[in-house]
């Protein structure tokens, strides 16, 4: 799987307005909704579920990234949106540090394997410091899209 297979490029938010965890999640889910990725009328329910999941255990994995996610019966395909914050957001991350890049994944409830494949692809790149640094430096949608497409072509970026 590649980023281009499941990232909704038009929904990317290069500078998040919200500065708290729940606000950021709502902003990102709403952006996916506006891009028509979630089916009509599902935005609030999905936002609620992502926040609920996040409260159970933080997806702030450390090193400035968080990967909030949920498997939800209302969505048909796995879809990812990315939001960036230059001020940093408190995600109760494992290393207690602020989060600058948020990668939000919504996947169908009945296809756990697809969910794992999307996660595999995300972490394949996030584990590289260079990728995390480049991502954090992107300041507009097109830059993020370019970076992800480049990462698709060059897995060790």
């Amino acid at each position, binding site marked *: 799987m590649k980023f281009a297979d499941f990232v909704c490029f038009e929904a990317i938010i290069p500078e998040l307005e919200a500065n708290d965890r729940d606000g950021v999640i709502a902003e990102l889910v709403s952006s996916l909704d506006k891009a028509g990725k979630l089916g009509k009328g599902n935005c609030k329910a999905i936002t609620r579920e992502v926040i609920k999941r996040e409260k159970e255990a933080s997806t702030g994995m450390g090193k400035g990234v968080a990967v909030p996610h949920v498997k939800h019966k209302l969505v048909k395909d796995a879809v990812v949106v990315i939001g960036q914050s230059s001020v940093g957001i408190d995600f109760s991350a494992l290393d207690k540090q602020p989060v600058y890049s948020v990668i939000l994944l919504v996947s169908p409830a009945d296809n756990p394997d697809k969910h794992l494949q999307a996660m595999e692809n995300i*972490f394949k790149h996030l584990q590289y410091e260079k990728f995390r640094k480049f991502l954090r430096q992107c300041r507009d949608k097109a830059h993020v899209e370019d970076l992800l497409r480049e990462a698709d072509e060059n897995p060790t970026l």
Partner: protein
Amino acid sequence: MENVVCETEIEIKNADGLHMRPAMQFVDIANQFDSDITVRNKETEVDGKSIMQMSMLAATCGTILKIKAEGSDAEKVISALRELVEEKLFGEPAP
């Protein structure tokens, strides 16, 4: 201290596979030991103590993982991880 190497295969048996929460449980247990721990699927070998690396295994239900522990407590590592994955199923349902 004596350096022991233990290697085994374990099967992912919970329906949702090794998603983030199970991966975190795995890493939490792995980090209680001194041994170096590597986990391998067909293509990839990762550090069993790193959540980012464990999350990229994409081990679905039915996947066989090779776990290697190297250090004085290597045997304990293997039995603790086997218990978590194959007996407790990370506290999750089977398919």
